[in-house]
């Protein structure tokens, strides 16, 4: 028997085994759900019932635990990179160095192109916000489990799928824009920033809506076992990746754009 025939036979056998496994699972009776789909969806939006105890100090939404976890992991990775990788940087970069430089260069250029007059602080801010949104959104893919105060196990959601996290980032971005206006143009900068008073609301709810919709679709898909095969590859991974990229770009780009607009020195006529 030639090698090609053996490989073909192996693939067919694996295919049959997988098909039988899927059929077996699909025909079985699903276990009884602890919560209805309505409750799951409602809780994903409002976080009324499922709370997690934060070090026994206070009960918080699961997204806050996600946010703290993301921060801890990101800072740990950043510290490792700072200690072990950055000192070995070469003038002709390797693949990982190139990736880091691309990340930093992307946000730095975003700040420089949108706000040519004043961009030092803006570059650092959009970098941090971009990394937070991107990694925070991808965080839901890992499906880390947390135990609620009621003793139930829940998958930790993306931090920004919580309205409180979205409001904090949206308002902070607005404050950053306002600070750019004050530093760049003084009272006139404050005026031009306050003119866009709807910005913190639109920024917050844009983030919240985008991340929450992803969360709800994922919750819906995983709630029913029949939808839990193949489909999660599309909705769980590709959509998450896609909206992680889009939301990162949108918030950082909008912040940089408005910051550049309000910090631009006023020309006397």
């Amino acid at each position, binding site marked *: 028997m030639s090698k090609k025939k053996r490989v073909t036979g192996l693939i067919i056998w694996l295919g049959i085994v997988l098909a039988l496994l899927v059929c077996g699972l699909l025909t079985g009776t699903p276990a009884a759900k602890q919560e209805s789909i309505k409750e799951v969806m409602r809780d994903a*939006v*409002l*976080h*009324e019932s499922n709370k997690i105890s934060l070090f026994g100090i*206070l009960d*918080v*939404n699961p997204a*806050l635990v996600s*946010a*703290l976890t*993301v*921060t801890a992991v*990101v*800072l740990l990775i*950043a*510290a490792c*990179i*700072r200690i072990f990788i*950055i000192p070995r*940087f070469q*003038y002709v970069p390797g693949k990982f160095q190139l990736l*880091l*430089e691309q*990340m*930093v*260069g992307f*946000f*730095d250029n975003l700040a420089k192109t949108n706000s040519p007059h004043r961009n030092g602080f803006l*570059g*650092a*801010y959009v*970098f*941090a*916000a971009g*990394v*937070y949104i991107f990694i925070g959104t991808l965080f839901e893919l890992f499906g880390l489990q947390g135990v609620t105060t009621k003793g139930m196990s829940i998958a930790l959601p993306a*931090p920004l799928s*919580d*309205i*409180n*996290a979205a*409001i*904090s*980032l949206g*308002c*902070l971005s607005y404050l950053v824009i306002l600070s750019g206006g004050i530093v760049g143009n003084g009272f006139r900068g404050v005026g031009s920033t306050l003119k866009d008073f709807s910005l913190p609301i639109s920024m917050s709810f844009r983030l919240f809506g985008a991340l929450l919709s992803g969360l709800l679709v994922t919750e819906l898909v995983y709630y029913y076992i029949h939808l839990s095969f193949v489909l999660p590859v599309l909705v769980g991974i590709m959509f998450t990746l896609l909206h992680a990229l889009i939301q990162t770009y949108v918030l950082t780009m909008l912040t940089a754009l408005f910051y550049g607009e309000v910090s631009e020195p006023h020309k006397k006529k």
Partner: protein
Amino acid sequence: MGIPLNIDWQQILLHLFNFAILAGGLYFLLYKPVKNFMEQRIAYYQGMEQEAAAKIEQANAQELEYRQRLESAEQEANRKKEQAARDAEKTAQMILRDANKQREQILAQAKKDAQHEKEKILQDAKEEIVELAMAATVKMLHGEAVSHE
């Protein structure tokens, strides 16, 4: 009445606190060192570029200088050649003039010598004639004496 959508100010502040830590950490651990390195590399390559540009400029200046030197050397050579030609012409004319002068002197001397020789020959001839005449006279006189005797 609670805030709609279960908005909680305490959790908003906790999220802000969390993000502030993340932003500060990322700035000091990643953003600043990587940006510094990139700027350092840009400065390094700009320095190399400037150095190369300075060397090219220096080479161009040297080429120009050598070209100018070459041109001035050619001009100097031409000038010297012309000077040498003029000097040769002058020397030739001087030699010619001297030769002419010498020729004239030689001719004058030759004429003078010839004249002198001519006069001497004439003088000698005269003297010889006188002698011959005297000899003939003596001889004649001697013959007459002999015949008288």
